[in-house]
């Protein structure tokens, strides 16, 4: 570990804190309807789509809109990928995407996961990248934000279960929040060397006389929404490790900032929406503590390096000129600190883009991304999804605290009773059930074991990582696993759908239930949700729910591998 490495991590933290409030205020204005500079475009969209923007939807109707929109856009993308060879903007003459991968890709992008079993540079046409994948990047992000804002309305209002209008939230999020920020970010990226063109691939003659084909494409526009929408699907196979997708340390900094900026701002906005700004900051603090613990652990593990490789002769001690540590699967321009930081952030949020290969991390370095996802993507989390996931944890915390003192639990003046807790528990249980059951089945089936790139406990980690990533809608991978088979395309595609919709619907139900309840005045017995005690309890609940559920599986993967690495055992 180096002083500069720590300074970069601390600097990032300081900037994140500084931008939280301004971005949060912007988010507030987008969703309370007071921002209006694109009102004419909005009106046209509502008229064309037959949407009544003044309709206040009951939670069941709001959830129905979410589901139908997702189903329709998933199907459209499935067919567009299958027909890619006859659609325009295909200079490299890419064939149709195979059925299994078209299903998985459509599901994965619809759910904000962006798990990719294909290589962008050899599978997707520019048309598919731009009109299908980037379109889902926008709408899955705006859809997640809409769901989170709906929850905030449920908590703050008394409105007979009404949560706002999904179509309006979707449109406003896309128009006011994502597109303007993306245009600015994309241009900052291009200035640093990211490409943005529609040229066919270029054949270069290298200095030593060999041929090198340089992949081209509209990369920057897709990169911007990839990070701001916490989508993570790369234009190229190597994702943000590819120099055209992340050319310099400065673009790297912008990318990790872009991943957290909206989820962090949304937490502040949530505090204001429920008229308790300090509650927002308390949640922010819990998220920050978990984030910082993760990055410190990952940085320590990666800087320490691999003792087996050190024994072969690698100098793992960092100096002014030698990066040291574990540089397998990492780029020189980012080094150890920025790779550990990126890996932590991309898995805290449900982004899933990578600037280094997590599969080649040391066992503890790879454990951090895995645990981040298994905690439910609530550490800032995916845009929208992170906040509503966290509020589920808050509801559980309030419930447990209420049981401890023997009072009816209440959250911001709303009583939490059995049907609310039932929804929160459903949300909490669906998640590990999907990850652990799919992983267990995959370990037992020959089809599941066929795709492994590593033997021993690391092979198990690859499987566990894949289902954690897809269920958590993250999309990053221990990329050695060959996900391109009927078995994995189908199961991983299903895991993304379960992880999104089987969790979003109970969450919207809970929001609806809360909206039906009247606001009770705060009493001396109300558990305060703004204090350090609350922050500690919240972190405790998150860790206990996550750690107890996944510890046995983690023990079989990264934990035992760490011990074996110390003993010099190879597979």
């Amino acid at each position, binding site marked *: 570990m180096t002083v*500069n490495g720590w300074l970069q991590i601390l600097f990032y933290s300081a900037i994140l804190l500084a931008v939280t409030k301004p971005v949060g205020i912007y988010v507030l204005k987008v969703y309370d309807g007071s921002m209006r500079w694109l009102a004419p475009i909005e009106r046209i969209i509502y008229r064309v789509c037959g*949407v009544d923007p003044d309709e206040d939807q009951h939670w069941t109707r709001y959830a129905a809109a979410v589901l139908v929109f997702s189903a329709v856009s998933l199907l459209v993308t499935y067919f567009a990928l299958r027909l890619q060879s006859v659609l325009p903007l295909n200079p490299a003459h890419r064939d149709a995407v195979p059925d299994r991968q078209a299903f998985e890709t459509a599901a994965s992008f619809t759910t904000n996961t962006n798990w990719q079993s294909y290589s962008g540079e050899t599978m997707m046409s520019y048309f598919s990248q731009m009109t299908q994948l980037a*379109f889902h990047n926008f709408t899955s992000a705006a859809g997640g934000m809409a769901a989170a804002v709906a929850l905030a309305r449920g908590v703050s209002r008394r409105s007979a279960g009404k949560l706002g209008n999904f179509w309006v939230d979707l449109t406003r999020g896309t128009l006011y929040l994502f597109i303007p920020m993306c245009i600015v970010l994309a241009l900052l990226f291009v200035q640093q060397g990211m490409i943005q063109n529609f040229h066919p691939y270029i054949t270069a003659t290298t200095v030593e006389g060999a041929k090198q084909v340089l992949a081209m494409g509209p990369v920057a526009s897709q990169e*911007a929404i990839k990070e701001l929408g916490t989508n993570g699907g790369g234009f190229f196979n*190597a994702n943000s490790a590819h120099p055209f997708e992340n050319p310099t340390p*400065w673009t790297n900094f912008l990318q990790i900032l872009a991943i957290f900026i909206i989820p962090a701002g949304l937490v502040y906005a949530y505090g204001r929406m429920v008229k308790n700004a300090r509650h927002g900051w308390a949640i922010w603090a819990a998220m920050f503590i978990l984030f910082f613990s993760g990055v410190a652990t990952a940085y320590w593990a990666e800087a320490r390096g691999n003792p087996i490789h050190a024994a072969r002769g690698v100098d793992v001690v960092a100096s002014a000129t030698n990066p040291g540590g574990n540089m397998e*699967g990492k780029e*020189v321009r980012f080094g150890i600190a920025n790779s550990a930081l990126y890996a932590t952030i991309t898995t805290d949020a449900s982004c899933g883009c990578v600037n280094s290969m997590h*599969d080649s991390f040391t066992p503890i370095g790879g454990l951090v991304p895995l645990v981040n996802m298994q905690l439910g993507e609530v550490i800032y989390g995916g845009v929208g999804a992170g906040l509503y996931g966290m509020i589920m944890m808050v509801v559980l915390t309030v419930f447990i605290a209420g049981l401890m003192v023997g009072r009816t639990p209440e959250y911001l003046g709303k009583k939490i009773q059995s049907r609310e807790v039932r929804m929160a528990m459903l949300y909490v249980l669906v998640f590990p059930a999907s990850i652990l059951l799919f992983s267990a089945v995959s370990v037992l089936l020959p089809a599941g074991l066929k795709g492994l790139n590593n033997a021993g406990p690391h092979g198990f980690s690859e499987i566990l990582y894949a289902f954690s990533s897809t269920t958590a809608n993250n999309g990053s991978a221990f990329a050695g696993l060959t996900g391109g088979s009927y078995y994995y395309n189908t199961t991983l595609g299903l895991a993304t759908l379960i992880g999104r919709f089987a969790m979003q619907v109970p969450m919207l139900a809970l929001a609806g239930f809360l909206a039906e309840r009247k606001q009770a005045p705060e009493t001396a017995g109300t558990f305060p949700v703004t204090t350090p005690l609350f922050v500690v309890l919240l972190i405790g609940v998150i860790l206990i729910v996550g750690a107890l559920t996944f510890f046995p599986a983690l023990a079989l993967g990264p934990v035992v591998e760490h011990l074996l690495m110390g003993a010099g055992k190879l*597979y």
Partner: protein
Amino acid sequence: MLRKQLWPAIAMTFVLMIITGGIYPGIVTVLAQVLFPHQANGSLITTSTGQVTGSALIGQTFAKPEYFHTRPSAAGNGYDDTASSGTNKGPTDLKLADTLVKQAIDSAVAQDGAVRGKVPSDMVTSSASGLDPDISPANAAQQVARVARTRGASVDSIRALVGRHTTGRQFGFFGEPRVNVLLLNLALDSSFSRPTTANSSK
């Protein structure tokens, strides 16, 4: 209830597809091509005859002893920009430890006089993209003697050239110090004579 949402869902899909998948990338492309055409088109390096030598951002394979070598690469057969990838080998992988890393160390020891235990970590490991254009300053320093010897140049003059091509942390703070191998090797060719063919084929 689901049926009532069907038309808005279909219409919204296509309207937002046009906006986010057509208009938005269109705006970005036009602005990028007007403001930063060199970068937007790949930061290409061309010879005086207009032939493309490569991109300043994408690493190339260098095997000849008169050039600085890039890192090991898992992209296709090495630095294949249509197959970007890392090895994705884990920390307890036998092939990684005893074939890939070990062979790279053996070759650094044999070719560049590296000392076991002191081999720069980026020199013997594959990058994440397989296209890493950079090497660390320690890695470059390790190769100076070989390049100087092959080209019949003084070690100091090569070292000075490496120094001029070493990029510090961006804005003095971000990232890590690095040396762009392609740009360094092009500068080598323009400042120092190349050895005779018999010599360079080794």
